[in-house]
């Protein structure tokens, strides 16, 4: 499906799932997932609630062991922005301490990365006093500061204000270029998914459809899952553009 990547070395992928699935409490949370993330590529998972997006991300991260199929990873430089982080209030933790929890970084690096997400003023703030949006920004800054090869973002902009959302998505896009890292993104933002990602996987307990954003948008399974409404939003969106994207992120006139 990806001509450029297939031409190069086969072990080029950062992570590769083959027919992977998780079985829990006598049912399959997700099954038959095959996906691949390579350097410089943004792969997005979309799907309704409970469709196994987070579970799939956790398989990629080796937090959950797949009960069937295989998960192969070529890198250990991984950073993760979880969907939910509840820091117990009994733990006094400033942004400064939180930035260092899985690896020491210098204060300069810390400030630099917090600046990227616009929260450098909060460096000594108590984590429990942050708003939801501020906390997301800190989470993203922390992940980026690790300079990962593989970055996994689980709904990274939830609770962020509208302008901030656009800025953060732009940041994520630019990170994938500047660090040349592979990104696996779980997102509900159809516009970003369709405009800036290389490969879309539509999940609903299994892979409904996958491919380049434009091909997924036309897929009947996708329209079934998200309804005519989304499809029309998309066509409206596409109406304003004179190009579509290839799987490598390039522009196809």
């Amino acid at each position, binding site marked *: 499906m990806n001509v450029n990547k297939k031409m190069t070395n086969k072990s080029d992928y950062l992570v590769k799932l083959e027919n992977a699935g998780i079985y829990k409490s006598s049912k399959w949370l997700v099954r038959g997932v095959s996906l691949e993330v390579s350097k410089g590529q943004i792969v997005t998972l979309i799907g309704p609630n409970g469709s196994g997006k987070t579970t799939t991300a956790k398989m990629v*991260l080796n937090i959950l062991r797949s009960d069937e199929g295989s998960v192969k990873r070529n890198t250990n430089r991984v950073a993760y922005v979880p969907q939910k982080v509840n820091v117990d209030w009994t733990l006094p933790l400033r942004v400064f*301490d939180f930035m260092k929890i899985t690896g020491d970084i210098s204060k300069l690096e810390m400030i630099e990365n917090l600046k990227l997400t616009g929260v450098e003023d909060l460096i000594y703030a108590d984590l429990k006093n942050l708003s939801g949006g501020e906390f997301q920004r800190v989470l993203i800054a922390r992940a980026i500061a690790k300079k990962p090869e593989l970055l996994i973002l689980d709904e990274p902009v939830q609770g962020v204000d509208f302008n901030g959302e656009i800025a953060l998505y732009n940041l994520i896009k630019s990170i994938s270029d500047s660090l040349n890292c592979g990104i696996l993104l779980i997102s509900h933002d159809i516009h970003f998914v369709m405009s800036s990602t290389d490969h879309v996987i539509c999940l609903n307990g299994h892979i409904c459809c996958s491919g380049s954003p434009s091909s997924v948008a036309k897929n009947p399974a996708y329209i079934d899952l998200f309804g005519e409404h989304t499809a029309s939003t998309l066509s409206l969106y596409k109406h304003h553009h004179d190009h579509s994207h290839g799987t490598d992120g390039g522009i196809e006139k």
Partner: protein
Amino acid sequence: MFDDFFVRALVAGIGVAIVTGPLGCFVIWRRLAYFGDTLSHSALLGVTLAFSFSINISLSVFFVSGIIALLLLSLQKRTKLPGDALLGLLAHSSIAVGLVLIGFLTFIRFDIMGLLFGDILSVTINDIFIIWCGGSLILIILYYIWSSLFAATVNYDLAAAEGMKPDRSNIIFTLLLAGVIAISIKMIGVLLITGLLLIPPALARNLSNNPTQMVFLSILGGVASVVLGLFSSLEFNTASGPTIIVVALVLFILSMLAPNLDSKLKK
């Protein structure tokens, strides 16, 4: 100036407080207060076994508490019972088994009050040796697993995802907790050891805004409780273990007043 036993009690007590401080912080952060209780209650069984087979008390307590702790970790994965029910099950059955065993040991004169509340004033040179060597070992191991354990405490998924091996450090931490109970059981007793694990970090929480500060303040609070507690117990002729905990409680109440003072100053 001091009688010899009093100096020994001070040295032993300070040693214990230095170790319970950092471990107690994790007990609070990870909400393991009741877990600490279960481990210390199971220590009763450990002490009984030590008397039956005439082996070292600390060693036997460490083994029994360690086994109970590992049992709990594996039971949590296998049964449908919630964690607190499992803790209660293990705590009370090990107390019961311990007490039944004591009943059989009629040939030994057994100071059960000393066991429950500790007898810090009967500490021997040998006990001091165990406390300081065991304590140093516990702190060294804690130092090595610190970052992994801390990451796992903040967020398990994050730690697991970014290669911090949270499961391994969780198990090691549990064994360290069994270790700290083993070295301090003779001094402070089965019923009160969780108090020394919890109260100094609790008062430190009131005064600190970052984890390092909290750890050092809880060591300080623990040492202050031990020193003031021992002097008071000598002065008022009260049991040493409970007096130490009462002093810790008073310090905790004082620390509750501190943040108010702080916010008033800021206004």
